[in-house]
């Protein structure tokens, strides 16, 4: 290389050139600031300020019309003592556990099947078909599903009737309502997780599979000992995103059951909406929102902490 001394002694004598101030370094900083400014301003105005506003509001009693009144931790006491709010959080956790597990399992299974030997056009077809529900509005999907699952006149019960089965109380029993909510949610959302897994599976080097073939590994062994460890970073991202999304579930149970029967499908976000926009208790709604945000943060942090044990980076 030109200009680099070969002789170590000579090298020792050669003064190490200090890194010159990069031309335009200050200019780059300004450019960076300029380019980042809209995002920073946007996030500050539309995310940080509302978050801070909500935190403050959680300590006030406000009905949108009257002047807010400082009430200290009263909203948090109400939150802790309200049976409806307590049940809504339990429902949300139960929903997250079932829906996310199902969503990940379905997405992973289908991704592995689609990534296996399959003509390219068929693979594209399945990718589109599985992703399609995600682009639909959750409210309209839920509305259509509410007709399909209607106990008296719904298509599902009609089909069950043709098979000689009795009608199922899909939306009018506590278990049925939750089952439908989970099914509708998973059907609509697994497509995104599926695409993540497709990407994760595609990034696994083929030579590892080829080597395992030579070693005579069974398909199950290949799945558990190659696919799963190597797709684990994707699994982490998919699970974190699925949990955050599921913790915020609102549209599906709101349209399908309005939270009923009883409180059986009432979720935390639904209670936030009802407290704020129907019962005009904006302070209480902010307090519930704050607790939910803390839960989401805690769950996400825990996932990343635990991920060190099961996520394998190549």
């Amino acid at each position, binding site marked *: 290389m030109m200009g680099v001394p070969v002789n170590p002694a000579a090298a020792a004598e050669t003064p190490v050139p200090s890194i010159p101030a990069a*031309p*335009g370094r200050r*200019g*780059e900083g*300004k*450019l960076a600031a*300029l380019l980042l400014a809209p995002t920073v301003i946007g996030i500050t105005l539309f995310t940080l300020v509302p978050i801070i506003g909500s935190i403050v509001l959680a300590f006030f009693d406000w*009905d*949108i*019309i*009257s002047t807010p009144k400082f009430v200290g931790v009263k909203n948090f006491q109400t939150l802790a003592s*309200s*049976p*409806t709010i307590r049940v809504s959080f339990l429902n949300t956790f139960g929903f997250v556990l079932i829906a996310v597990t199902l969503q990940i399992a379905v997405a992973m299974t289908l991704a592995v099947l689609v990534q296996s030997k399959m003509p390219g056009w068929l693979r594209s077809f399945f990718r589109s078909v599985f992703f399609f529900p995600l682009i639909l509005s959750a409210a309209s999907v839920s509305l259509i599903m509410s*007709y399909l699952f*209607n*106990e*008296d*006149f719904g298509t599902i019960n*009609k089909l069950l009737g043709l098979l000689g089965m009795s009608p199922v*109380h899909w*939306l*009018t*029993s*506590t278990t049925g309502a939750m089952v439908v909510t989970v099914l509708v949610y998973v059907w609509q959302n697994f497509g995104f997780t599926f695409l993540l897994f497709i990407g994760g599976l595609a990034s696994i080097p083929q030579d590892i599979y080829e080597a395992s073939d030579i070693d005579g590994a069974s398909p199950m062994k290949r799945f558990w000992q190659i696919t799963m460890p190597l797709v684990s970073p994707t699994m982490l991202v998919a699970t974190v995103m699925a949990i955050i999304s599921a913790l915020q579930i609102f549209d599906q149970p709101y349209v399908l*059951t*309005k*939270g*009923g*029967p*009883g*409180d059986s499908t*009432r979720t935390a976000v639904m209670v936030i909406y*009802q407290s704020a*926009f*129907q*019962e*005009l*208790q904006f302070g209480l709604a902010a307090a519930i929102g704050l607790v939910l945000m803390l839960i989401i943060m805690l769950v996400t942090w825990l996932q990343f902490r635990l991920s060190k044990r099961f996520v394998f980076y190549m």
Partner: protein
Amino acid sequence: MTDITRRAVLGAAGLGAAGTALSWKRLTGLDIPGRGADQLNIAINGTAQDAAANQGLIDAFSALHPDIKVRIVPIQGADWSDFFAKILTLVAAGTPPDVVMVATEGTQLFAERLAHPLDEFVMRDKEEMREFFEDVHPSLIEAFMYQGNLFQLPLSWNAANMYFSSKAMERAGLDYPREDWTWGDFQGHLRQMRKASTGTFRPFFWTNRLWGGVVPWLYSNDTSFLKPSRYAGGEWLWQQFYPGEKGRSGGYRWAEPNADDPKVLESFEFLQELVAENLGSSPVQGGGNELVSRFGSGVIGMTPSGGYWVHGLNQAGMKRDDYDVAFFPKRRTQQHQFGTAGYAIMRASKRKDAAWEWLKFCVSNQGMGIAQKNPDSNSARRSHNTKLYKDTGPAHWKVFYETLDRYPTTAPVPAPPQEAAVETALIKNVLGAVTGSRSNVKRALATLQRDLELAMKES
């Protein structure tokens, strides 16, 4: 990386500032049609098409009051609670409308927090208003009174009457029910209908909501899930416009939960029995639109509904004699429930006089004739109601207004200022009470009582 000069930064900032200035109206919402203009803003619960349909009304009003500019603001709500929430958002944003269409569900909420009483206007124009009150049943007026003041003038209303499919009645060999038919008669009718039917036919279909859900069964059993009482006051109106009327008040008062009343239990047990016997559906939530098509296709025998169904059924292809309507069956009483709607003037409005002119015009014979051409709700005016239904309604269309005339204790659905929380408490506990075993009923009502106590406390 290209160096960026101070000049370039200043230039970019200048361009940004110029862009912001140019789009200022958009950014601040000043370019929204009508915003900031000196006009009477009237919020209705409906679509842009509904607003456009009011153009005839606006034109006629403008001919009378050329100095008052009117703009209808359509606000779509999934239900009345949703609509009120959106109105409150406008209030919080500092852009409240001058006049809002409010249904019974929101009357007391608006009266307590947002609406301006009409007393002074009504009394100022009492001679002009006399003809209106003579044509309107006092129950509708009383429903719009709160703590002795009047807050709205009723335009439309609907009581829960019993609709039935003529074919289902004929198939079951049933005649039109007696005027004072009972819950037992009703149950007998359902049993006969079921015996004579096949397939997915439901003798009785009902929805789980405040209006037309469980409330008519409570009212006709002389009870309610909130203890009904009345506010004092209102003599100024009753003496002036309804001098012969006795027992009217300053408005309905719903302050105490009443779900532990044995008569409430009895009503719920009756409904539970209908569901258990497979005579009645497990009540789904939702509005009546979906029901129209089901009733029209003959898979429902009976269902509670109001005059607003007539237009929908006509449009669904049903002929006048394909269905009929009767009074609600009685238990201890034959008190019916109703809901009504009318315009309220906002307390914050700076155009209250103009708003009053709009209210007066809308309840006038001319206004009602323009605004309501189809039988899609009962008219508050007895005379206009006749025009709406006599050529298009079912054989017993007179039942609609006679619900008030024959049963003057007929009352609005319970809607205190905390209506949203109360309605949620009711709806969420109904299904649990009427679906499943008899033992569920008591448990669900205990929860309802607890939820109502919380709802009333949180006011």
